[in-house]
């Protein structure tokens, strides 16, 4: 493929046109470099998104009450919707087939909680026993809230790891009493959560207890349901649809009202972030390709120049017996060679760059493990060869059409 003669020719052409070759090659190298770096960063970002969901169950949905935006059944729009104990109990009964775990969640704004001399602001949530299952909370000490606590409206709390650190330090908090909202609460458990620092700053109490300190309200805040994984993706969609229409009917919300209630699902969140990173990747590829294209045009340019420079030589070759095909092949080989070498340089530098900044990225930019896999690298190589061919094609064709008689009279 590349005979010794051919190498000699290629190297000679390059050495005679060092500056042009370097410039043209640099454009290609730069194009590949940009593509590789951006693509790698895109991968890293995708990894980050995936990690966000690592600790959450994907088969969880959060049902949030909102305000209606349409009048319906004698009610005006902008009506505030609330879920109550009956809603919670009825939903639980009616959709028992789908449900693996269901819990309400009443979130109170951060307030001052203290133990002896230490105090800080923490958020308190009123929840049911299934909350632990739904949020994959891991108990470090003691236990989570159970149904007896709910029925008896006990003033028990389960505190996050960071709450324990703040208020108790090294001391064992189980069985001790903390103060909040003018009442005492007994600590029955400590939990940890991989979902980030914020989770571990929460304090959980039975939702019925929270209801009773909120002037006997029946409000349950939001309802969180983890559905049985066996129902599959289609089953989940059906479930969401059914429950949405049930609640809307029950609360007298216009079926066509986009507000009123809002259901957030972990799987649709993940899909959204996947879509986002896919779009990002597309944009990146587009940019990278654009730069690459510019590089190809540069190479094509230099090949045209080279062909012009070598017109006389090409005429001699033709006079001696070179077929048009061999001339075309000659030019193409040079063009492919330059493109591929420049491309590889760009690839190499890009990959080196990615792996060297990998750690910094994780800390400063939340980008985890940027990388370009082998498959992509091979694909890039193939593309380079193809592009090199394209770049050299027109000059090559021009070269093969040189009339020996005219070429020999050149210069």
């Amino acid at each position, binding site marked *: 493929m590349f005979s010794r*003669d051919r190498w*000699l*020719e290629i190297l*000679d052409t390059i050495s*005679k046109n060092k500056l042009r070759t370097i410039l043209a090659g640099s454009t290609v190298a730069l194009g590949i470099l940009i593509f590789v770096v951006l693509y790698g960063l895109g991968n890293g970002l995708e990894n980050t998104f995936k990690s966000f969901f690592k600790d959450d169950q994907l088969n969880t949905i959060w049902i949030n009450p909102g305000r209606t935006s349409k009048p319906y059944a004698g009610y005006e729009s902008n009506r505030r919707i609330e879920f109550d104990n009956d809603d919670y109990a009825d939903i639980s009964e009616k959709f028992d087939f789908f449900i693996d775990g269901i819990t309400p969640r009443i979130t109170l704004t951060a307030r001052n909680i203290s133990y002896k001399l230490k105090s800080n602001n923490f958020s308190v949530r009123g929840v049911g026993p299934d909350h632990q299952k739904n949020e994959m909370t891991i108990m470090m000490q003691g236990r989570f809230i159970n149904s007896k606590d709910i029925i008896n409206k006990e003033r028990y709390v389960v505190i996050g790891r960071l709450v324990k650190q703040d208020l108790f330090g090294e001391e064992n908090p189980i069985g001790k009493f903390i103060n909040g909202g003018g009442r005492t609460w007994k600590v029955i458990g400590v939990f940890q959560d991989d979902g980030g620092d914020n989770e571990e700053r929460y304090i959980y109490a039975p939702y019925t207890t929270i209801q009773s300190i909120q002037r006997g309200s029946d409000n349950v805040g939001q309802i969180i349901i983890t559905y049985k994984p066996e129902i599959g993706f289609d089953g989940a969609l059906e479930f969401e649809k059914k429950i949405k229409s049930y609640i809307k009917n029950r609360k007298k919300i216009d079926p066509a009202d986009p507000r009123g209630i809002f259901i957030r699902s972990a799987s649709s969140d993940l899909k959204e972030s996947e879509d986002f990173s896919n779009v990002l990747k597309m944009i990146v590829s587009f940019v990278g390709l654009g730069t690459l294209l510019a590089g190809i045009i540069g190479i094509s340019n230099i090949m045209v120049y080279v062909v012009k420079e070598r017109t*006389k*030589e090409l005429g*001699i*070759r*033709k*006079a*001696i*017996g*070179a*077929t*048009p*095909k*061999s001339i075309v092949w000659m030019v193409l080989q040079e063009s492919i060679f330059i493109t591929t070498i420049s491309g590889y340089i760009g690839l190499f530098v890009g990959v080196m760059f990615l792996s060297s900044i990998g750690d910094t990225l994780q800390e400063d930019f939340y980008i985890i493990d940027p990388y370009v896999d082998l498959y992509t690298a091979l694909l890039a190589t193939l593309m380079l060869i193809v592009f090199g061919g394209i770049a050299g094609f027109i000059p090559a064709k021009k070269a*093969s059409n040189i*009339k*020996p*008689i005219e070429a*020999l009279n050149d210069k």
Partner: protein
Amino acid sequence: MIKIKNLHKSYNIGKNSLHVLKGLDIEIKEGELVAIMGSSGSGKSTLLNIIGMLDNHDKGSYELDGVIIKKMNETKAAEYRNKFLGFVFQSFNLINYKNALDNVILPLYYQGISRKVREKKALKYLSDVGLKNWSHHLPNELSGGQKQRVAIARAMVSEPKVLLADEPTGALDSNTSKEVMDLIQKINKAGKTILVVTHEHDISQMCSRIVKLKDGVIVEDKKIKQKKAL
């Protein structure tokens, strides 16, 4: 060897067409050493180019060693050129980044001959022109006369039927010219048909037949007693 009847050739320059060859008839037998003379514009270079298959004729016929040469695709033309014809030019036309040996090898490379064989053959022809020790020198390290001798070796290496020389001594001093013509005469003596286009009287005297062109037609065609170059 060469049979040409009623050869016409015109060039288009802008909107006008220049009728360069106006019906040439000429026959050249194998082994002849023919000088083709004429002032510039007479059509001598055009004739040589057509014979050399570097250009196509418009009208008339051209037969080379019994093969009718007419307009053909480049690939076929290149093959014919490689097999039947050898060229020597006024400005040598060697490839400047290849050494003498590699220049001579080139026609063989296009014949698809293997590396070892072609190196051997090229070296033989290089020795024949007396430049065996200069085989690894680049053209810019050779004198004019040496360059022309390399060109002659290159033209001969493919063992063509006809050698075409276009002002072969045009860029050389008189002594070197004589050396080159001596070489050409030797090759002719060995049986090669050679055409030499020249405008120099001295050079034409070293051939065995002189054909004079004027305004696209042959005005004189006579055999002469060949003078020895050296």
